[in-house]
Structures are given as structure tokens and as C-alpha cells.
């Protein structure tokens, strides 16, 4: 029972097909309460279908989906916020009215919805536009409004499908800060994105899908370790040091990357011992044990899957 309560979302062997085409095959994963969970995968991987299944917009062919430990009830739906990839707002409606309506649909009483909307608009310095029609706002503002519409009812679980797409760097940062703030306040966030840099920075754990199948699942740090090439990046104060390093035994390969050099130690060589040896032979300015980025793992995984 305790374990179930720890999970905001659980998928158990969930499959879904459209017109006899498998969109999701036997997917199992869980999202822990209070974490930022990344949902990664190329276009057509089944991410949006998975989100729609989670929100009970569509039903699975088989398998079980539990949200907050139970099957999704209308009341539980009110505890979820959703920013779809396909953005949409009522263009001809006044900003405040639209936010109030969307909050009301999440079970917030009208007066409270109005207060929430006004306070959120104020926090993003948009309160002077509250009586404007949505179509009168700039694209950047509309994107911020879209984000507000997903959090206006203070959801416990927030699903963000490509939240950074189309955002300029300033707004990307604003949204990232918001997301981190929400996690700090105990909210659970599911982040579906193509932007691996943001996913790597923000996510605690990830699920990577490809063609409806689960290809990677787990904590970001562990996945990066698992996919580590076991290489070291070093930099020296003087160019001549490189020759001295070539003399060190236990290094099977050296690749020069301009200023820095990547060293590949032989199996069983201790990084600690290697560091000591390097310090003796050269004037080191940088020594780093590297892990591949999520982006590299993403590309590598997709390539290996397509080669199978």
C-alpha cells in the first residue's frame, strides 16, 4: 500500500493500437511522486498516445493504468494539469475569462479561479493584458498563457508535452525555473520532450520510447553511467606534455580534441592511479571522468535499435 502511494502514475503492460497498427506495446513504468519524469523518444514513438491514455482521453487495448494509486476518476482528473504539444487557446475570448473557464473545468469554483488567474498573471507581469482577447497577444505571451492554463488549478501532477518548443531562450529559462519551483513544492511533473539538454538538466528519471516500445527506463544518472565509455578528458598547461602522457602505460587509446585530450584507460586500470601518474608527468589544468550526454545516448540507442 505504501509503495502504491509513492507512485503518481503506474503503467502495467499497457498496449494500444489504431487501425491494427501497434502504437504502444506492453509498456510498463511508474512515476514517483515529487519527481520530474522525462518521456523521451523520436516523433511517432507513442509519447502523445501514452499521455492521452494516462489522461483517460483514450482507453488502452490491454494493461492497467493507475493514477494516484487508482484508476483515473473524474475527481483525479482535476488533480492533473496538461500542456499539450498541439497548443490551442480560445482566440476570441478575453484572457481572464478563458483562464477562469479552464480552471472551472478542473473543479475550481469561479471566485477562486479568478483569484488564481489574477495572481498567476501578475507573477508573469501579464496582468495588464487580462481583459485583452488572446489573439491580440504576442506569440510569446500566448505560450506563457498556455503554460499558465496548465497550472492554474494547482495540479499535483503536471504533464508537459514539449513545453519548450517555440520558446525563445528567455522564456525557456522562465519555464524551466517554474518547473523546478513546482518540483520543489512537491508536485510531480512528466516532461515529454525532444530537447535532451533540458531533459538532462531537469529530469530525475526517464522513459525512452521508440516505435511504441520501451528502450530505456531509469534514473538519468544511472543511465548515463551505464552508457559511459569509460574515458577521461584532460587538458595541460603546455603542449609538450602530450608526449609525456603517451609514455604512461595502461592507456589504450588517445584522441586529441583541440585543446583537450580524451584518454581511454585499459580494462582494470584504476582512475585514481592514472590521475596520480598524470600529475607526475604533466602540468594538468583539467581532469574529468566523462559520461555521455542524454542526447548521445538517445542517438546511440536509436541507431542500435534500428540496426537490430
Amino acid at each position: 500500500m505504501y509503495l502504491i502511494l509513492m507512485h503518481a502514475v503506474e503503467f502495467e503492460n499497457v498496449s494500444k493500437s489504431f487501425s491494427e497498427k501497434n502504437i504502444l506495446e506492453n509498456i510498463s513504468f511508474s512515476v514517483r511522486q515529487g519527481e520530474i519524469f522525462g518521456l523521451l523518444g523520436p516523433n511517432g514513438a507513442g509519447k502523445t498516445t501514452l499521455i492521452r491514455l494516462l489522461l483517460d482521453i483514450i482507453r488502452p487495448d490491454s494493461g492497467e493504468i493507475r493514477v494516484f494509486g487508482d484508476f483515473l476518476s473524474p475527481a483525479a482528473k482535476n488533480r492533473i494539469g496538461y500542456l499539450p504539444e498541439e497548443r490551442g487557446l480560445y482566440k476570441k475570448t478575453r484572457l481572464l475569462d478563458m483562464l477562469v473557464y479552464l480552471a472551472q473545468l478542473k473543479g475550481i469554483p469561479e471566485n477562486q479561479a479568478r483569484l488564481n488567474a489574477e495572481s498567476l498573471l501578475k507573477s508573469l507581469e501579464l496582468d495588464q493584458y487580462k481583459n485583452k482577447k488572446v489573439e491580440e497577444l504576442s506569440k510569446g505571451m500566448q505560450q506563457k498563457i498556455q503554460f499558465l492554463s496548465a497550472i492554474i488549478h494547482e495540479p499535483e501532477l503536471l504533464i508537459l508535452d514539449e513545453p519548450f518548443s517555440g520558446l525563445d531562450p528567455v522564456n525557456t529559462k522562465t519555464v524551466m525555473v517554474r518547473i523546478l519551483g513546482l518540483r520543489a513544492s512537491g508536485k510531480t511533473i512528466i516532461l515529454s520532450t525532444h530537447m535532451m539538454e533540458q531533459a538532462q538538466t531537469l529530469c530525475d528519471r526517464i522513459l525512452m520510447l521508440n516505435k511504441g516500445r520501451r528502450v530505456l527506463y531509469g534514473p538519468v544518472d544511472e543511465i548515463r553511467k551505464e552508457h559511459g565509455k569509460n574515458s577521461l578528458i584532460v587538458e595541460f598547461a603546455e603542449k609538450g606534455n602530450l608526449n609525456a602522457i603517451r609514455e604512461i602505460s595502461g592507456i589504450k587509446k588517445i584522441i586529441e580534441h583541440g585543446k583537450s585530450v580524451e584518454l581511454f584507460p585499459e580494462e582494470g586500470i584504476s582512475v585514481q592511479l592514472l590521475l596520480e601518474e598524470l600529475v607526475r608527468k604533466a602540468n594538468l589544468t583539467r581532469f574529468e571522468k566523462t559520461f555521455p550526454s542524454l542526447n548521445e545516448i538517445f542517438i546511440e540507442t536509436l541507431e542500435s535499435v534500428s540496426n537490430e
Partner: protein
Amino acid sequence: MNSFPEKTFIVARHEFTKTIKRKEFLFMTFFFPLLFAGISILPAMLSGMNPAEDQKVGYIDLTESFEFPKSIQNEGLSIGSSETKTSVIEFVMYREISNAKQALQAGQISSYLVIPEDFLKTGTIELYSPEKEASMSNFELSSELSDIVITSLLEGKVDESTLNRVRNPVNIKFYNIGKSGESSERSIADIFASFGLPILTAFLLLFSIFSSSGFLLRGVAEEKENRIIEILLSSVTPTEILTGKILGLGAVGLLQIGIWLAAVVFGSGYALPVKIEPYTLLFALIYFVLGFLFFASMMAGIGAVTGSLQESQQVAGIFTFAAALPLIFMQLILTNPGSPFSVFLSLFPLTSPIAMLTRMGVTAVPISQILVSIFILLISVYVVILLSGRLFRTYLLMYGKRPKVKEIWKNIRTESR
């Protein structure tokens, strides 16, 4: 607390307030009453009547045999039924034509009459009025002069009742003979009420059904096109959206009908004293509700399946054309309301609301036919709501190319399992 009706109500209220603020709605709702008012008031205005305007008319009686009253109250055509406004025509006698002419040019009188010496032989009275002034303003004088002439010629020579009969020779009353032979008197107003108003009501219903279900189609297509539908579906079920939209826009339609009927009652009561029978109103209401549910659900289904507003309107046009068939065959229904084709149109669910109400306006439709028509419409409403609900659930989130009919049918059947 069950949140189902609550969210349906929120959707309904949103649709209602959003729609009544639309320019199209305001135009449609207030254009018709204005048009109606224009039609009923314009003829009275065209007849040149200005009931409140009194006038002075000079006369020169060359026969010296007429007794003109000092003034007469004119109750000719007037606007307003509750209190008939009258104007006063004051007669001013002149001995010489030149004096009358001068008075006319000075604006002391609006016109003058000359009764020639040979009036008894010719029956001609000459009326002189200023150039460019609508001669119609003197139109009313004709009947008043007839009265004066008759009175002058016959008073004292025949009794009062003969005099009255000569003044007002024929007064037609309309009677209807019922099946059991009883007769009932019908006034012009009754004839208009039983014949014109149901047809007018049928027209108004049709327009209201079309405009309200058109708003629904537009709303669904727009929400699908601008993708907000996905946010809505994360909060409410497709059934809640569908029900909320139908209720909200149904209320819009009822409000519109209410405004129109109020305008008809007010407008017709103003120009022609008529009253709408509760019987007609009851059936008008039943046909409106069922007709609206039928079309609105159909439009919701079309809006869900099609990819854009433009495409949805093209598809909806086919059904709208079918529904407008009674208008095309209106003459046939009016002249031959009992013909098999008229009966068919009043039973077929797409056309029955307007066709049946029109038939009811011109003939006594057997109650069995009315009940069968309502029953067929009820069944059709049920089937269309069921199908549209399924289309709504299946296609709301499918963007891009419109699915083929075969595919839609397959999905409807899959959903039912």
C-alpha cells in the same frame, strides 16, 4: 458530489455566454424583429398616414347644396391597436376659388375642394393641393367626402337605418363549418393567427435551429482546429462536452426564439390584433427542441469528424440543404397540405419540424400523423446522439485528412462493442 452535471453545466454556461456575445447571433436575433417591424409598419407609413397630423381643408361648394361639418374625426389607417389615434380634418368654406388658392399658397390650408355645379351629373369633386406634396395624404378624404355627400343628399329623405346601410353597404363576416356542422366566426385576425403565424413560427424555428446548430458546428470545428479540444478533454469527457454544448446552444436557440416570438406578438399585436394559440406554441416548442437536438447532434458529429471549419461547413451544407426542402416545396405544402409528398416531408426527420408546422397552419392535420412525426423525430434524435457521441469520442483528436465514410462506419461499430 458528482461532478458530471456540474462540468456539463459549466460547458453549457460557457457556450451560452460566448454565443450570445457573437456579432452573428446579435445580428440574427435582432435583425428579424426589425424586419418584421419594418414589414408591418411600412405599409401604414407608405399610405401617407400620419394620424397625429391634423389638417385644414378648404372647400368651395358651387352647387350650394352640401352641408359640410365644421370638422371631422378621422379614424383611417392608424398605427397601434390599443388606442386608435385620430386626426382632425377641419373644413373651411370659401366663396371664391381665388381666396382658397391664396390660403393654400399661404399655407393656411393643406388643400381645397371644389364641388362643381354639375356634381350631381358627373359625381366629380376636384381636389387641389400644393405641388410635390404626396397626394396620398388626401387619400383618406375620399371616404369622408362620400359620407358627407350621402348625408347631404339623403338626410331627411330616408330613415336613419337606410342612411347607415348606404354609408356602409356590406360587412363580410367569415365562418368556419366544423365536422359536426357547428359554425364559428372567424375574423381576419383569426385567419392570420391560424394560417400565417404557424408558418411564420415554422420559419423562425428553422432559422433558429440552423443558427444554433451552426454555432455548435462552428464551435466544435474551431476547438478542433485550434487544438484547445485536447485541453478540454483532459478535464471533461467527450459526453460532457457534447451535452454541455447542446444544452448551452439549445438555451441560446430558445432565447432567440423567445425574442422573435415576443417581437411577433408585440409587432403583430401592434399592426394587426392577433394572438398565438397555446396549441401552436406547444407544438412549436416540441418541434424546436427535437429539431434542435437532431441537428445539433448531427453538427457535433460532423464537426468532430472533419478537419477544419471550412470542411465541416461543406459537409454540413448537404444536410442543411435537405432540411431546407420544405422551403423549396412551400407552395406545394401550402396549396396541397394533404398530398403524399407533403405528408412525407412532415414525417421525414430532417424536414418534419418545418413541414409539419406549416401543414398545421393550413389544414387540420390528423393528430395521429403529428404523433407519428414526433415519434420518428424522437427515435432519430436518439440514434443521431448515439452516433455523434461515438464520432465525438473517436475523431475529436484525429487531425488532418477526413476519414472515409467506410472507415467512420467501421469505427462507429467498433465503439459500440
